[in-house]
């Protein structure tokens, strides 16, 4: 989960997501970097949710104090 999220962040800063000065292909009239950015943001939040499901902190064992 962590490595996929880090990978998502890394590809954001490559021409795959932020090509210099290019706004096509558009999706439903939305420029390329915009819709790719939205998808990556949604994925990061989704991975955050999935991360909470497997994280040891969810057991609550360190919260009794």
């Amino acid at each position, binding site marked *: 989960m962590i490595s996929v999220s880090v990978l998502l962040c890394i590809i954001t800063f490559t021409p795959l997501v932020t090509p210099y000065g290019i*706004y096509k292909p558009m999706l439903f009239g939305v420029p390329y970097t915009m819709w790719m950015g939205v998808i990556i943001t949604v994925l990061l939040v989704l991975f955050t949710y999935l991360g909470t499901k497997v994280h040891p902190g969810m057991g609550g064992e*360190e*919260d009794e104090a």
Partner: protein
Amino acid sequence: MIFWIWVFGAMYVALLVFVSVKSFKKDRSAEDFMLAGSNVGLILGVLTYAAALFSTFTFLGMPDFFRLHGIGAWIFLALSDGAMVFFIVWFGYHIRKKVKQFGFKGVAGLIAKSYGNKWAGYIIFLSAFLFLIPYVGIQIQGISIFMNAAFPGSLPSWGWATLIVVVMLVYSEVGGFKAIIYSDAIQGLLLMVVIWIIGASCLSYFGGIDKMFEAVRQVDEKLLSTPGPKGLLSTQFLLASLIAIVMIPVSQPQFTTRIIVMKSTKSVHYMAVSLGVFAMLVITPTIFIGFYGAVKYADVGREEFFANAFLYDQPGFVAALAVIGLIAAGLSTTNAQIFALGSELRGLLKGSEKSVMLKTKIGIFAFSIIALVFSLLVSDQIVLLARVSFAGTGIMGPMILLGVLSDRKVPPFVIFVSGVGLVVFLLSLAGILPSEIYGLRMDLFLFIVLCLSAILGYIFGKKSST
């Protein structure tokens, strides 16, 4: 509009008074006053974190950023916030473990204890002071600009700024951190409602999202890609911003405190997810407002854009809500930052609880006055100043992270290198040192160097007996 400002303003003030009085306890402890008893639940936790994060910077700054620099602004803030919430899950767990070991009276105090070296605390406090005060100042200034537009000629700028600081000091003094959390909850909800009403109104001007982007393309197609018309949102700028924003929970004490006062790690985790959703929801309408400005007010200054897009082009009650929403957004962030500085100061003070609390309150008052003076002097784009604040405190990130994660006695050179990093960053901001080094932005370069220093500090650190 004026009538509605009085109506909404009266409701808002009544709510502030209510939460302050409700939070007031005559015989409260320092823990109650500064940390709300460390028992904050999920909904309050999300709203207080969001209100502290999304402020004038989001309400005014982000529309202006979209207007001037285009769609890369989404990567700059929303995507970086997505990475930050992922990081909170991991960091929240570790810092809460550390707090169980050492107790908590501010990040500076915690890290000083963790390093066994008071200089670590002093440098963290210095960095928070240097980079939060200008940020607080520009928030206060943002509100006074807006109030001048709403009530032209009724009060000078310094009058509005002073009024804001007085309101903030009164309700935080009466209710403490608990009142701030409750008022943050009101402000977070208000911000979301107002920004969506104005965003929807701006979007309806175009008649749809596709038509909005088409209109923007006709004005300047560079707004539809990175790095934007002015070339600001380069890969390095966006990457350095992502790092600075991810470091916010580590290096901006008002956010670290909000993670620590949550009642359980489970609540922190759900708070992180909800915050990610909140961030997307609150930033989306700023795209519509920003591009409305790019099409209708491309060549005007920021004050004229704000006044037109938020006030004069809106129906009276919406404009009034915008005024109150902005005051709320600015107050919550300003208050969070000033109170956090007080909390950091408290962690470094010694003496009886009563004398430490007195000095802390005097400190909070002094920080407010300094921020007020700064608000009358500063002149910069809100977002860029906020970013400098994130980057400046982010420089302390590697040292704080090492203090939180390491179970070893960290060598003092890590503190020394972080201190030098802080000085170099300040000199670079002042133009005395270059803004780039070996082709890298100075903030990115420093972050890499400080990460390496932290790694070396860990490798050469001695295993602690505790």
